[in-house]
């Protein structure tokens, strides 16, 4: 992948959220509709295209864990709120050139996560589990060694304790398990095909009606694999 090669070549150890999403898109994993803006004019133009509500995020490869740094503004309803958020984030980022990600707000109550890790014995392994704040609290996760077959992906969904979240519960429709399986299988493929990728965190994957959509993603690179 071009994005990865470039990043590794200049010694970077991660991709920005925007780049990570481009990588996932290239592998046909559904992600939020989004664009990068650098000034207020293009912000309002993009906002008009995507439509409110929107999320604004400070975007740079050096920034992981954006929530803690006040670089995320969610549920922005109009131009006025968008401009305020843009200013706030720009101030917090303290960089000469501010790159801000404008992103559709995906509506959905269920948050899942998927990821990739490399194990010394088994090579790339795919992780799946409950997403959002529950990932760290409950550690309700399952692993499979890449490559995954569809059966593996379906079984790892069943394996987590909270697997009922995928069924039709409390008025929500059942999650499209085939779509979710495709994401898990593809993450394994990404791991196998890109040696420079050390880890991936895709969290959250929000279930919009029945469809899983990647809302945030982090890709960690291994610069020794250049």
């Amino acid at each position, binding site marked *: 992948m071009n994005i990865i090669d470039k990043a590794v070549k200049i010694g970077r150890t991660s991709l920005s959220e925007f780049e990570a999403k481009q990588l996932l898109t290239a592998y046909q994993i559904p992600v939020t509709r989004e664009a990068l803006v650098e000034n207020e004019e293009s912000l309002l133009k993009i906002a008009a295209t995507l439509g409110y509500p929107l999320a604004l995020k400070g975007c740079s490869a050096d920034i992981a864990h954006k929530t803690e740094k006040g670089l995320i503004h969610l549920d922005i309803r109009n131009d006025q709120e968008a401009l305020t958020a843009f200013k706030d984030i720009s101030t917090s980022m303290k960089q000469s050139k501010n790159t801000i990600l404008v992103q559709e707000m995906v509506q959905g109550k269920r948050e899942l996560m998927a990821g990739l890790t490399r*194990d*010394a*014995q*088994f*090579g790339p*392994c795919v*992780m799946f589990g409950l997403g959002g704040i529950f990932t760290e609290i409950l550690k309700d*996760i*399952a*692993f*499979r*060694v890449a490559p995954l*077959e*569809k*059966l*593996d992906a379906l*079984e*790892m969904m069943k*394996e987590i304790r909270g697997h009922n979240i995928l069924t039709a519960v409390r008025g929500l429709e059942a999650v499209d398990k085939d779509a979710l399986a495709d994401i898990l299988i593809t993450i394994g493929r990404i791991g196998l095909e890109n040696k420079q990728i050390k880890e991936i965190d895709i969290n959250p994957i929000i279930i919009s009606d029945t469809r899983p959509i990647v809302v945030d993603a982090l890709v960690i690179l291994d610069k020794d694999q250049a």
Partner: protein
Amino acid sequence: MNPKSIVYLGGSNSLQTMGTAQLITLITGGYQGEIYPIHRKEKTVLGLKAYPNISSLDKPAELAVIVIPGKAIPGVLKECGEAGIHHAIIITAGYGEIGQKGASLQQELLAIARKYNIRFLGPNCIGIVNAHIGLNTTWFPNKYRAGKVGIISQSGSYVTQTLTYFEKLGLGLSQAISVGNQADIDMVDCLEYLGEDEQTRAIALYIEGIKRPKAFLRAARKITARKPIVAVYVGGSTAGARACSSHTASMAGPDGIYSGFFHQAGILRAGNVMELFDWTMALAQQPLPKGKNIAIVTNSGGPGSSMADEANHCGLEVPIFSPALQEKIKAITPLTAAAVNPVDITMNYDLDLIYKKLPELILQGQDMDGLLFYGIFGSIHFQDKIAFTGNPAGNILNPMKSLLEKACDEFVKLPEKLKKPILCACFSGREDDAVVRIQDGGIPVYPTPERAARAMAALWEYATIKKRNRDESNEGENR
């Protein structure tokens, strides 16, 4: 694993060496092949004609068992190669498991073996047991039973020191292999071998690390489609991982990844070695349940409840019997019994009812997929009572024993006849003649009710794995 003749290096007439101890178990184990001890000075070793070295052996040998100090091994291995011995077990330690220096010595052995076309097990292993030909190269006693469980272990202790435990548990062994450092022959080779072995009906694995994960996965998947594998993996916790690297030179991966990997391979993961052997014992001997509805027959409330409770915990169902079945049960059992499930027959000693009529009645319909049974009482429990009444024990005890034997023999035929699994629990062990009769007849009897229930859950888990594999192959090319 089936050598007609063995050259043995490291045995002497002194009991102080491990090599001698292992040679004694080899000689006394009932092995019918030839054993040729090699000893520089002695003319005979433990009563066998000894040879000064391999080259002076004028007969062909198929296997070399090597328990000598490490520095002499490369030379011996070369001699084996020149004498046309293509298989060796290297018991000696001091290789990959001790660090860099050991690892290069291990490489040297491997290079010699490749040159002479020798396949070897070890180093740093305890050897093999092949129960069906009485071959035991380990140093632990020979009192174990031939059976259907095959074991591959990265720890030698689990194929040697466990032999007495197996005897108490009633577990019969087919073959056991201690793989040691896996310099040449590794766990994958052994898996493929036991996968093909007719005597082995279930495989138990003790794993600290996997050297060839892809090949392992391929081999295991193929096997688990028709033969169950249960594994214990140690190394997931930090403490376990530390113990590993100083034991066998393995890398331990995180616990969660192993769980996922075992799922992919269709391997049941046991939480500890107790479950490992409990489950393989059931899997090797009993038919698989077609569903998860389990009936419980007990002669005592507590153990029956424990079985039901544990069965539920492990994902099995203990449904209430249909009214029709309840009526039929009531018709043949005394009034005091609960006929719902569990069936509590109380302290009834109608052998024909307990061991035949009732299990058969419950299992022959479509509703129930397996039976958990508590209530084995052999004649041992009556001996002292009979003695106390002043009766000459033989008069009452002998007819009782023969009736009991008959009842047990009928009981052990049921699983095959009804194509449904039966597992028992009894707090008495093999000191009880009924337990012996039932275990030897092929129905496992566990020391506690919960262990029987968990083993039943393992049968069901494997049944679903087998079904999964079948579904998978039905889906054809795109899988």
